[in-house]
């Protein structure tokens, strides 16, 4: 068992808050990612769980026991840093075995554990080498092996792949997730890379300015972001955002995103949904992901004409910048769909993938029209 509960945690340096009233329950064997831009408090939170940082208020419970007065060494937690902290004069084997030195275990028992960990990390052939002769990915594997060998209740990782190149990171993502499944440990993982968070986490906790913004599964934070910050931080390319003016005309709603040419038709339910939402008064901001901008090469009813501004061919698909007068929206299309700059297309916004936010507070109105993506 290793359930971690953060209850009303606060940390400040002078008047500046690093963490504000943070509440988070990390379940036994769960993979939780703390995601946010630099300075959002995610690393401080991780270090507080590890006991490397003291908190000013609140409680940290591991398996129901308060630990804030326990030393880092007594919390039975392993920490993996971004920079592989290995002993340069020891071999990979000795580095992994190091945490077991203090346990007075028999040599055979230590050997068995080291080899088992090395096998699961596929570094058995590297055990005799020193860190200086290892590649970056292998060094990080050794560092993870050293953390795992004690079979800790929880693994805390601070951007462990930050120093690796893009291709290696892709492979390590899969490895780390498998490792998490095979080990019984709870994992808390810190990153600013939303792709890592989305692709590895059971749940993501998104932070900004020391404040927790939303906790949810990757699907929840992607499809139902709680506010504008989450909406724009998660997903690449970024969600399209524009101030929206709504007007009921005939039996449809017209949503204007800036200028006459940027008017889009929506079903009339949109109006009543907005008036029923607690966040629905005042100015609104519309958000739609590029895949929610649906395109046609021929004129169609309910579609708005657009001009292709730029095409980014990404291989498997294209990202197309469309101009509606002065307003700009990005759409995702199959490769080669949009042709060249200056071409005319027709677009509509998928109501099921449209988000509305209160412009002032940034909070989502939680309007769900249709049942498109989830």
């Amino acid at each position, binding site marked *: 068992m290793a359930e971690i509960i953060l209850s009303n945690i606060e940390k400040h340096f002078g008047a500046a808050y690093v963490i504000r009233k943070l509440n988070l329950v990390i379940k036994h064997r769960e993979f939780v990612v703390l995601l946010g*831009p*630099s300075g959002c408090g995610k690393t401080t939170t991780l270090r507080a769980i590890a006991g490397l940082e003291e908190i000013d208020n609140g409680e940290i419970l591991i398996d129901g026991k308060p630990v804030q007065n326990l030393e880092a060494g007594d919390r039975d937690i392993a920490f993996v840093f971004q920079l592989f902290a290995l002993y340069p004069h020891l071999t990979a084997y000795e580095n992994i075995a190091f945490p077991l030195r203090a346990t007075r275990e028999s040599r055979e028992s230590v050997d068995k554990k080291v080899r088992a960990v090395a096998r699961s990390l596929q570094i058995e052939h590297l055990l005799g080498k020193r860190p200086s002769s290892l590649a970056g990915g292998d060094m990080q594997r050794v560092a993870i092996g050293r953390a795992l060998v004690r079979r800790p209740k929880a693994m805390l990782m601070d951007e462990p792949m930050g120093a690796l*190149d*893009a*291709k290696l990171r*892709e492979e390590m*993502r*899969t490895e780390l*997730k*498998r490792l998490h*499944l095979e080990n019984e440990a709870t994992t808390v993982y810190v990153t*600013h*890379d*939303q*792709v890592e968070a*989305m*692709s*590895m986490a059971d749940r993501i906790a998104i932070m900004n300015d020391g404040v927790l913004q939303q906790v949810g599964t*990757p*699907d929840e934070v*992607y499809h139902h972001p709680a506010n504008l910050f989450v909406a*724009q*931080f*998660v*997903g*690449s*390319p*970024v969600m399209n955002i524009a101030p929206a003016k709504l007007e009921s005309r005939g039996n449809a709603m017209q949503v204007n995103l800036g200028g006459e040419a940027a008017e889009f038709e929506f079903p009339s339910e949109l109006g009543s949904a907005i008036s029923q939402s607690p966040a629905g008064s005042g100015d609104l901001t519309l958000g739609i*992901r590029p*895949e929610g901008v649906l395109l046609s090469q021929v004129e169609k009813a309910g579609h708005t004409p657009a001009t292709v*501004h*730029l095409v*980014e*061919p*990404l*291989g*498997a698909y294209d*990202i197309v*910048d469309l101009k509606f007068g002065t307003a700009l929206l990005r759409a*995702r299309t199959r*490769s*080669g769909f949009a042709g060249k*700059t200056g071409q005319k297309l027709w677009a509509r916004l998928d109501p099921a993938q449209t988000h509305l936010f209160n412009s002032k507070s940034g909070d989502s109105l939680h309007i769900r029209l249709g049942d498109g*993506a*989830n």
Partner: protein
Amino acid sequence: MAQIKFHSVTRKFGGNTALDALSLDVADGEFFVLLGPTGAGKTTALRLIAGLDAPDGGSIEIAGEDVGDQTSAERDVALVFQYYSLYPRYTVRQNLEFPLRSRTRNLSQSEIDMRVEKAGKTLRISHLMDRKTDRLSGGEMQRVSIGRAIVREPRAFLMDEPLSNLDAKLRESLRLELKDLQIRLKATFVFVTHDQVEAMSMGDKVAVLNKGKLVQVGTPWEIYNRPRDLFVASFVGSPSMNLLPCVVSGNECSIFGGAQKLKMPATPATTGVTVGIRSEDVEVGPTGPVEALIHDVENHGMEKIITLRVGDAFLRATVSSRMQANVDAKVKFGLDPQKAHFFDQETGMNLSA
């Protein structure tokens, strides 16, 4: 006119050959990307164009003229670095004026003002003109660095990983701005990066370099869909192209113990063939010739990338985010035979290219 040509350019550092008989042809007004991993020679190539370094063999032409004897300044090209090199005590305006104040230019104050104003507008930094550069964010600083290049109105812009120090979100938006800028200026850009997404999304042409040698030049579409060899195939695209060894018999190539057979365009001269297939061309569904276990599921928002395990082989497939995919569940899949690539295992060359 700023066409740039490399004629068999070689550059050695001691026993290390950084560039090996490199020939390139950059057209006027083109966004040309040099793409490759660390040590590929891409930055060396850029420094040679700028005149910061001289080749050991071969020659470089700018606008039809051999520039071998020209100094850096005479070449009239502008370099933008990964690290913004700005004067911290100067305001944005002073930083932009600086390259124009050079005595060799002899520009009037009104001409300088006009150029600085114009660059400010182009880069949307007009509101920052009187701010000191140490009070700017990373993205703003990089814009000012680019502004210092723009005011000179050079024949070509050379950019050495200008986006790599910025965070992921900012990089995405600056990518677009740069491409937009290049189109508006109708200027020649030579852009160095190791990031294949940057190369694909901005380049009119992409030259893939590896170990000092040119591997392939082409449009992003060509590089992605017709990789010349295994290196380009696995370097371009995320996730990497799946590569699987296959058993050849005549012009048929069979994988996964014969569970799937693919027709090759011709009978290869070798039996050592590797099949390449991109994750989006692996079709996962209720039917399909091959059975696999789901080894890993990655959520990418609108899609999932799942890792399939067949015996000891792993491959990645892109599926819709709505597909239910659980680790260790059994699924069936097949490869789209139209989209398969075949490579000679020994030479790495694409057999259909």
